[in-house]
């Protein structure tokens, strides 16, 4: 190919290719927007304050989804109690202490591959370890532990990136003033990196709230007449509620409004959390003074 003056044919091809790319992008984005709008339009008529605040009635065909909302919030927040301490600790080790070597390569490889393990496999793992071996049974606790391990790679990756973005000069200044590593981390690096690390945790929280497969056999029940009073109780959850109504129930067509209503609530929760994290992250980047 000789690059010379752009001939008319080449210019035409360029314009055509640009429009093809734009059309592909437009088609993809439009399809996705259509899906969201479809769920929103169908769900909106079902969602009301009663829908959010009441228990399901009449074999799940009437009433609300309050126990599922409660269960999903409990599972998502509980999973963060597992993944935040473990994930932040691992990220601090990787970003602040680790020197290149087989151990660090192993840790990185392990965490990176963990992110690609299918969520249903985490469900199997949770079932055999927490439900069966530890004897926690199908419970809020087993679900939180399973989801906590599932979201660990997300938390580690975001936290490590945030730690790495704090300038080396912060670290050097602290060490030059006679701080030891731990003092430098606790008093200088963590305060600077923590907002970014928590943003990653919010993203993981959203992911935990939307996961279905890992909790089907570790935590979820189709119906509970009361809110769980211990961590060893089964819980309802929004994603499994949608699945049960849409794919398992005997009155699938009849409960469509509930299915879409629950979907809209779940979508609002998950996308709301992700959106919040995205906005906070953009603000952090813009407002950063270093």
């Amino acid at each position, binding site marked *: 190919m000789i690059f010379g003056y752009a001939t008319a044919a080449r210019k035409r091809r360029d314009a055509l290719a640009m429009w093809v790319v*734009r059309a592909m992008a437009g088609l993809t984005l439009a399809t996705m927007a259509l899906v969201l709008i479809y*769920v929103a339009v169908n769900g909106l008529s079902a969602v009301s304050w009663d829908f959010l605040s009441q228990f399901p009635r009449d074999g799940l065909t009437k009433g609300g989804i309050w126990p599922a909302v409660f269960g999903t919030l409990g599972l998502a927040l509980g999973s963060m109690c597992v993944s935040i301490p*473990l994930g932040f600790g691992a990220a601090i080790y990787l970003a602040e202490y680790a020197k290149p070597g087989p151990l660090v390569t192993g840790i990185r490889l392990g965490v990176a591959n963990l992110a690609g393990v299918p969520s249903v496999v985490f469900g199997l793992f949770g079932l055999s*370890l927490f439900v069966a071996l530890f004897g926690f049974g199908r419970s809020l606790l087993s679900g939180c532990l399973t989801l906590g391990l599932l979201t660990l*790679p997300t938390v580690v990756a975001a936290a490590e990136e945030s730690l790495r973005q704090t300038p080396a000069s912060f670290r050097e200044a602290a060490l030059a003033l006679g701080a*030891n590593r731990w003092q430098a981390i606790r008093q200088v690096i963590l305060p600077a990196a923590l907002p970014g690390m928590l943003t990653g945790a919010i993203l993981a929280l959203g992911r935990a709230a939307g996961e*279905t497969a890992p909790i089907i056999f570790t935590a979820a029940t189709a119906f509970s007449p009361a809110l769980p009073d211990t961590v060893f109780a089964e819980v309802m959850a929004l994603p499994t509620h949608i699945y049960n109504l*849409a794919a398992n129930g005997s009155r699938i067509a009849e409960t469509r409004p509930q299915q879409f209503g629950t979907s809209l609530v*779940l979508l609002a929760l998950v996308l709301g959390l992700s959106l919040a994290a995205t906005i906070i992250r953009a603000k952090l980047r813009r407002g950063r003074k270093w």
Partner: protein
Amino acid sequence: MTADAAKPEASRRDVEPPAAERTTQAVAEPASVAPAGQPPVERPFVALRPRLSPAEKGSRLFFLVCAVAAMGQMLLIMVFLFGEAAGLFLGQDGQPGVSLRDFFLSEDWYPTYDPPAFGALALLAGSLSVTVCSTLLAGPLGLGLAVYLACVAGPRTREWVKPAVELLAAVPSVVLGLVGMAAVAPFLQNVLNLPTGLNVLNASLILTIMATPTVASLGEDALTAVPKDIQDASYALGATRWETIWKVTVPAALGGLSTAVILGLGRSLGETLVVLMVAGGAAHIPLSVFDSVRPLTSTLAAEMGETAIGGRHYQALFALGALLFVMTLAFNLLAWRLSRRWRSGR
């Protein structure tokens, strides 16, 4: 180093005393000062090794334990998956084990019959069919979107489209599954006049919606990482925008782009709820995209709830999980290798 060996006294003193003391000693002991007329002796550098405080040691240990636990989790998953799966092949309680040949090459999956049959071939074929079909769609679409975001869109458009795409990757799969059941299935059934709309095509379409944002987001990262100067060089030679994208930017980002597609493929392969809800659930090898299939993941999710923990069906499901795990691990390692080579190549 030779000076060090020649004057052991001087080098020993270097380690311990503070600067002030050292000066006085140097004056008192002229032997350690270099004789006039010769260049001053270079003092060897000795790194200070302060004793670590308990907090320093404790925190370091804690962080190390966290990191090792994160890695150990991967090993633990493998131990549990393969441990439970081994029971199926080795046999237990007087029952003979299932041979690997039967597991991989038989398409009869009748786990609750007597005698049961545990052939995974049809389930494997189900998984592969939806994964391949969805990757054929999500790959080009996602990369197209990536090229649009990285090379075509203006900065203003990019500023809000890129976060929107990342947000779409967070849509829970159960919601997409519902859309597949309630909207796509009746549509396919009516338009194409099929017995059921729950088939490979439907599952592939929904998986495409799910995987495209992942491919686009990772692909865009790879394209923006291409150095600006080689693109500028292409423009300086008179290439058009498309020629630059196609012949310079895309080849330079090829490692990252293939990583994006492979990770998207891995996501489709491991996705459970979409295929559980819209793939139909028939355990046979599909002959066309209009056939129902029962992928590995949906078999796990559908049957695990009804099995006795520790029984043969339970073990067989873990064997499916192990198979799924090995396949996704292979894709991930491939993606990791590709992205590493691509990064070290620059």
